[in-house]
């Protein structure tokens, strides 16, 4: 286990390093942040001052080394736009994104697993066919369109839910959370549903495929022959076996939701990390982009680790030591 963890950490460090280099080069290639940030009225002297103030007068490799040196001391640079440490900006926005991602994932599991199980167990019933048809919609409707439709129907026409924003928050552990207040929850519902639609469809399809495959296995036939109740066969034996792909996909999807729920966050003006990164890309705020992607890489590595550990719990045949 220790060797496994150590190796993972080394991999993580290497990936983060490569990532920072790629982002640095990428942003350098896109354009000049000063052209975007500076007031159009600035004259040539002011432009030169701004370039120097942001450290952009050095050659690229030197800028990169300065950045690496600071990063080793835990300083990922200051945002060009906000003049605040990039890492703090990201961590400030993280709770908003986290609660949305966790909420959407829970919702997806609560809806997707039962529907998928049903569709797998009764593949020919009209209800199952309906569920499958619905999941196609979930896959194929673009998120921004669904988001706007939700707003038009539930906020503008019916007036049941607030259209955008985060609503009231309470501070717990120094971070602001919405899901603990009524108003906050009301604000969360639509973005959460919007984010979870794709995941629900994914889980329905994975579960259904897994169930159909597993039901034909010998051990299921044997269990049935042994006289176990259908409920026990499904919920204990089948269920456990279909969970491995579901856990993998849910884990990766969860990471994706945290990192790139850009569309949902923009449509619902949800002040999370996705909105921060897209705004930063638009103005080429390099320190925030680099810091953000490094945080995300670390997060994905952690999620993968958790997924691997979950495998070994779910399926004793999977061992982490890997000889």
């Amino acid at each position, binding site marked *: 286990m220790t060797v496994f963890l150590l190796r993972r950490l080394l991999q993580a460090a290497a990936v983060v390093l490569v990532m920072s280099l790629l982002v640095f080069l990428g942003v350098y290639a896109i354009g000049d*942040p000063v052209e975007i940030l500076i007031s159009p009225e600035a004259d040539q002297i002011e432009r030169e001052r701004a370039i120097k103030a942001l450290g952009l007068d050095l050659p690229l490799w030197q800028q990169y080394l300065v950045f690496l040196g600071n990063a080793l001391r835990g300083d990922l640079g200051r945002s060009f736009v906000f003049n605040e440490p990039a890492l703090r900006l990201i961590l400030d926005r993280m709770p908003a994104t986290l609660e949305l991602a966790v909420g959407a994932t829970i919702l997806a599991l609560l809806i997707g697993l039962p529907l998928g199980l049903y569709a797998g167990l009764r593949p020919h019933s009209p209800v199952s066919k309906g569920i499958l048809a619905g999941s196609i919609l979930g896959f194929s409707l673009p998120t921004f369109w669904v988001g706007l439709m939700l707003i038009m129907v539930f906020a503008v026409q019916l007036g049941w839910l607030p259209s955008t924003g985060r609503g009231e928050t309470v501070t717990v552990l120094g971070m602001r959370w919405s899901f603990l207040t009524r108003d906050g929850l009301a604000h969360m519902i639509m973005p959460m549903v919007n984010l979870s639609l794709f995941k629900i469809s994914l889980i329905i399809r994975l579960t259904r495929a897994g169930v159909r495959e597993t039901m034909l296995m010998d051990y299921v036939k044997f269990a049935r022959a042994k006289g176990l109740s259908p409920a026990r066969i499904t919920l204990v034996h089948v269920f456990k076996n279909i969970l491995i792909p579901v856990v993998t996909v849910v884990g990766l999807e969860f990471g994706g939701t945290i990192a790139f729920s850009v569309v949902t966050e923009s449509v619902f003006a949800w002040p999370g990390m996705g909105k921060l990164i897209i705004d930063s890309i638009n103005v080429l705020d390099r320190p925030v982009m680099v810091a953000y992607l490094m945080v995300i890489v670390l997060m994905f590595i952690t999620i993968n680790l958790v997924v691997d550990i979950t495998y070994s719990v779910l399926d004793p045949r999977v061992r982490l030591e890997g000889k």
Partner: protein
Amino acid sequence: MLGFPGDKMGWCIRAARCAAVLAMSAAAVPEVRAQTLTMGVGAPVTSLDPHYHQLSPNIAVGHMIFSGLTSTDAHARVVPDLAESWQAVDETTWEFRLRRGVRFHNGSALTAEDVAFTLARVPNVPNSPSSYGIYTRPIREVQVVDSHTLRLKTASPYPLMPTDLSLLMILDRETHANATTEGFNAGPMAVGTGPFRMASHRNGDRIEFERNDAYFGAAPAWQRVTYRMITNDAARTAALLAGDVEFIDQVPTSDLAKLRADQRVALSEITGLRLIFLTFDHARTEASPFVTDNDGKPLPKNPLKDVRVRRALSMAVDRGAITDRVMEGAAIPAGQFLPEGSFSYVPELAPTRYDPEGAKRLLAEAGFPQGFRITLHGPNDRYPNDSRIIQAIGQMWTRAGVRTAVEAAPWASFVARAGRQDLSSFLIGWGSSSGEGSNPLRNLTATFDREKGYGASNRGRYSNPEADRVLEAAMRELDDAKREALLQQATRIVFEDVGIMPLHIQKNTWAMRKGLAHAPRADELTRAQDVRPAGAGR
């Protein structure tokens, strides 16, 4: 008690000891509700430090918390603010007299020392990506004559001093001696003399304001204001229709028709100061990178250097069609930098008339009877309908015989190429914040010159010595009437030469719930003090 917002009244209802107060003010409850305003704005405020990043949303919020020596009215004309009056004492000295009895939100009194402190701080804000230092640079010396009089010495005559000072928000020497940008963003340093106090700030999400009851100017109508940033256009409109916000800015042109028809919504609009125009490659006499002959081979000479070609390209564009159909009426065709009524507007300089046949004749005269090929570039995320405008122009030019390809790119990558003179022709915009002609003349069409600081945004590198000479004379002229005549002359020279090709001037549009009234501003700023309940006079 009238001053309480609705939610505090709710608290009051539950507290028995408020019963008497409640009885007194029960009839006034609707009015109490009306004391709060929630606004949805399209561009995020990046900093509450008024000297850190020069950006329209930051300036708008700056106007709510702070005040300048001067300010500008809805039509961008300079008006007094913290300074009651000013005059040029001699060619190189401006004298400003401060209003008496003005206090900062924390009670500290405003004196000339505070202004001197501010002018010293402005160019020295660390890490500023876009400093206001360009406006303090002409000032050689600041003399505090007495507690409420100040003299600013310049090296040469500088007629724009009162205009420039409207951008510099005055801080308090005692409060802000060691203030950092972070201190402003976090709240404790966001202390000014403006109509609102900052109550809370959530970066990129919202700012809450409370009325400053000690404000020296007209009292704002709102006890509490929530300034929410909703960058997605459709979501901002939806938030207004759903009643989550009562007021939005940057109404997308595609929503205008729908909102005009909506009984619950009122609109306000004003012709702005932002010109959308095309720039040509003036930098090259030989082949220009995106101009070729009809077979795709580079032309030996850059046809865009020929004024007949530029004039033909301008005549080939139907500006009315663009403002009516692409912009859905949210723009007026333009023939110069500024809209009618501005200082230094030239009455006889009308938008070029649409004349495709005349354009063909002029092209033939210039030696291109068969036309040529060109690629027109532009941004696709910067100005309303930017990529659709260049598509329309591409078709119009092609119809006039200049086969045009169109290439739109995100601003971040587009503007870098435009700034390196990589392009042959492109669409770009310019907002003349000062509302007068010297600003675009200096920045857009004056010869690129680092020493003078001229032509910094002259990305096509247009150069006309005659226009430069007249402009420089105007910049030394303290007499307003004489200066206006000189600026008009320079403007005429530039546009008769088609130095840049004006397309249209945008209208700025805001939308609000019925029952609100808004005094729209040509400079696009969205400020809570400009919004009032309808029927309430200023």
